[in-house]
């Protein structure tokens, strides 16, 4: 054969069939096994149909099945599967031998990139195609196939596939090491919420009142979180047997798809500039090395630093808040550890300490500065108390006291709670000095009109000597807890609610005995009982949470469960449930129980006796 003919390269090719075929045949175990495992689902459906009779499945049920899989399974499966496909398809970049072969072949990187991406996407979609085809076939045979549902499901699958594969490819281009790739992918997938969680946890060790629960503002940067939060099924009508089912959230899916495409584009640009000699290195580009070092140092400081502090420094801390200086030292040490570990990975050697003194100092200073910055409350988190006009509702909870809500209609209570909050903040030093063994753990949760929520938790013991100063938080707590308004709020159901049932259980004999089971039919007795409880609440017969240890009265082991429902905006009902304990002081309730002949005097005597047995003579006081 004359080689002069061969040099007539007429057009530039962007795709190489041989490589594409080779990728698919070489990696068939992966997509083969996933297809086989996925096929179990339609197989199961088929068996169920053959057993239970195939005529009973409706199109809507089929739609629901497809959409449920799309909304629940596909995001997680795609996320995990994408990295596996990427690891295989880009594996040639991670060993010098294979890089050598691929880049000696007469193809340019554009062609290699396009072919590899298409190979990867094909590998990702084959199992879905197999499972989908089987499912649709079964549906066609048994007569419940819905073409629209199938189309939308395919669309959702494709969008999510591109999203995650794009992300995986982008990660693949950043590193040269096949083991670093899945770690990087995992990190990038959860980086935003992870960092937020770490910073919040650390902050909660320093900031008075900070609960350490993440807000989830940055969750959208984690595709998995963003997708799961925004994708759902909607039924028409909302209650009762569904006539139609829709998959909601395509907007989100489309946005993530665009992000995936952008990442693919970025990956392509990176690939063009990527030096072949980076095969085997953790960082494929020189500029990424400091990113890796600082990244690992930061993560190490935020996680291990905190751990180190917990292990060694907590005995020395004053109060239940961390000592910034000690924490800074822990963070500096662990940050340095992370830095050197990163250096070892990058240099592929254990000898990285020479000449690193300057960097070591910088790392320590930065980590310490970060620690102090967090502890310094630069954003004024500690002192944040919402303005009264912004508050839609506020709830307080404290040990025995279940979360009790007050909405803005109950202006007085809201004001009192805010005032208590401010009073607590006025005495920061005092609160900080408290050690473990605080009696109270007050959780305040504000729901603001703009939809956000603000939570604070304060631990304290009420100080007896401050009770006569009405401005002090001790006095305010005492006043609040002894206020019948709390009990009233617990008992009262909202205006738009209707009581559906009241149950009463008597546990005194050791087993639950139903005293009253009421449904709508017997609502009159239920209503009377409810009113009696409410009256007891108003009159202050239901004790509030104890202010001092040893306070408080003892309840009978008798419980009321009030179930009521409210009508929701989107239609449908929301069911709620309140539990009220019966106290000896609730004279109206006991009286009503006797009047309605639900209990006898003898039984009440039993209750009293049980109380005395358990708690002593004072219990009845």
């Amino acid at each position, binding site marked *: 054969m004359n*080689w002069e003919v*061969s040099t007539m390269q007429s057009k530039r090719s962007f795709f190489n069939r041989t490589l594409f075929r*080779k990728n698919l045949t070489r990696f068939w175990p992966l997509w083969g096994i996933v297809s086989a495992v996925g096929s179990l689902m339609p197989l199961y459906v088929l068996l169920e149909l053959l057993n239970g009779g195939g005529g009973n499945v409706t199109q809507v049920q089929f739609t629901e099945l497809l959409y449920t899989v799309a909304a629940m399974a596909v995001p997680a499966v795609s996320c995990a599967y994408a990295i596996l496909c990427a690891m295989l398809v880009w594996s040639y970049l991670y060993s010098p031998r294979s890089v050598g*072969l691929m880049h*000696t072949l007469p*193809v340019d990187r554009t062609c290699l990139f396009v072919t590899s991406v298409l190979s990867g996407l094909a590998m990702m979609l084959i199992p879905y195609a197999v499972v989908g085809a089987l499912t649709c076939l079964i549906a066609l045979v048994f007569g419940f196939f819905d073409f629209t549902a199938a189309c939308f499901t395919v669309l959702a699958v494709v969008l999510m596939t591109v999203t995650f594969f794009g992300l995986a490819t982008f990660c693949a281009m950043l590193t040269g090491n096949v083991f670093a790739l899945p770690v990087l992918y995992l990190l990038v997938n959860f980086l935003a919420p992870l960092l937020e969680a770490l910073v919040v946890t650390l902050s909660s060790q320093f900031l008075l009142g900070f609960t350490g629960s993440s807000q989830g503002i940055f969750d959208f940067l984690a595709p998995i979180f963003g997708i799961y939060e925004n994708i759902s099924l909607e039924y028409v009508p909302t209650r009762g047997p569904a006539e139609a089912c829709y998959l909601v959230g395509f907007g989100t899916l489309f946005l993530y798809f665009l992000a995936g495409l952008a990442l693919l584009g970025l990956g392509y640009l990176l690939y063009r500039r990527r030096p*072949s000699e980076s095969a085997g290195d953790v960082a494929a580009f020189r500029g990424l090395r400091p990113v890796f070092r600082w990244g690992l140092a930061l993560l190490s400081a935020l996680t291990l630093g905190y751990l180190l502090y917990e292990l060694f420094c907590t005995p020395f801390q004053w109060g239940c808040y961390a000592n910034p200086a000690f924490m800074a030292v822990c963070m500096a040490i662990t940050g340095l550890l992370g830095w050197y570990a990163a250096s070892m990975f990058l240099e592929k050697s254990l000898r990285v300490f020479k000449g690193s003194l300057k960097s070591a100092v910088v790392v320590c200073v930065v980590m310490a500065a970060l620690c102090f910055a967090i502890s310094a409350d630069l954003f004024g988190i500690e002192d944040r108390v919402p303005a009264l006009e912004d508050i839609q509702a506020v709830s307080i909870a404290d040990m025995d006291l279940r979360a009790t809500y007050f909405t803005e209609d109950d202006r007085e209570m809201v004001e009192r709670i805010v005032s208590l909050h401010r009073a607590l903040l006025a005495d920061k030093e005092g609160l900080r000095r408290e050690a473990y063994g605080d009696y109270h753990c007050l959780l305040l949760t504000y729901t603001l009109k703009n939809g956000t929520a603000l939570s604070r938790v304060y631990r304290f013991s009420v100080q007896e000597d401050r009770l006569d100063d009405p401005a002090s938080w001790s006095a305010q707590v005492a006043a609040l807890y002894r206020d019948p308004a709390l009990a009233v709020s617990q008992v009262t159901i909202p205006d738009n609610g209707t009581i559906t049932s009241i149950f009463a259980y008597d546990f005194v004999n050791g087993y639950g005995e139903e005293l009253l089971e009421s449904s709508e039919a017997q609502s009159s007795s239920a209503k009377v009982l409810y009113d009696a409880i409410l009256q007891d609440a108003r009159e202050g017969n239901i004790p509030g949470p104890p202010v001092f240890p040893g306070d408080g009265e003892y309840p009978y082991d008798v419980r009321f469960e009030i179930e009521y429902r409210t009508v929701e905006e989107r239609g449908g009902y929301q069911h709620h449930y309140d539990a009220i304990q019966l106290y000896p002081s609730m004279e109206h309730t006991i009286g009503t129980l006797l009047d309605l002949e639900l209990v006898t005097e003898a039984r009440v005597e039993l209750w009293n006796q049980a109380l005395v047995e358990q708690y002593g003579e004072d219990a009845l006081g």
Partner: protein
Amino acid sequence: MIEVKNAVKTFEGFRALDGADITVPDGGVYGLVGPNGAGKSTVIRHITGIYRPDSGEVLVEGEPVYENPAQKALLAAIPDDWYYFQSATVADMMRFYRGFYPAFDTARYERFKEVFAIPEKAVIRRLSKGMQKQAAFWLTMCCRPRYLILDEPVDGLDPVMRRQVWSIMMSDVAEHGTTVLVSSHNLRELEDVCDHVGIMNKGKVLIERSLNDLQENIVKLQAVWKPGEAPVLPKELEVLHISHVGRVYTYIVRGKAAEVTARLEPCGPLMLEALPLSLEEIFIYELGGEHYAVKEIIL
């Protein structure tokens, strides 16, 4: 023609190529020799388009080869560690190569089956290293390249196979004008096949000349002097090395054999003989001037 013009490549502070210049003329066999770490494999990877130089040019027929499929199609390379897919057979790799090289000659592939005596269904991973190398040769020769680039090619082949492989390559050179670039330590073998030689050390090409030139311009003289001290040699003679065993002195001198002999005769030796040097010897003595420690080992 393959040209490397002042190529510089640094890997993490280590200058693997420090202004390397290579010119491989068409239709010949160019031998690239040098000690370990000289940069031979690195420069070969530049020529095959794997690496891109930090500065300088790497050209094949006047065009840069990096990211240039048209030029890469003219080259085929056998690296010192040839890559094959995990469970691939020879036939699998053949189909793979065929999908990339437009000039792939399937007829030749069939003809070579008897020559290489490896069953084409054999899984390459299970073959011995020598047989894997043979398979690499088999497939690479079928790509019908204009330029054949070999990095330590005959390492691991038995003498019969070596001869066979060189025979095929030389036949291609004669018949099709294929250009071969081979890097090796085995200078004795290179001597038979090369017509050009480049000696590399520390990322630079120290000498690049046709083999003729090299051999004609350096001579080994053996002289026996009259009893007494050996005379000091004329200053104009560029003497690379002097050694003696008893009264027999060996001089390695730059210059043509006839001229140098004529220069030395007036010094009155009892015996004077000019001998040609092997490539191995040339290599050693040329590098000896480059602070490459060559210690005389007394066996």
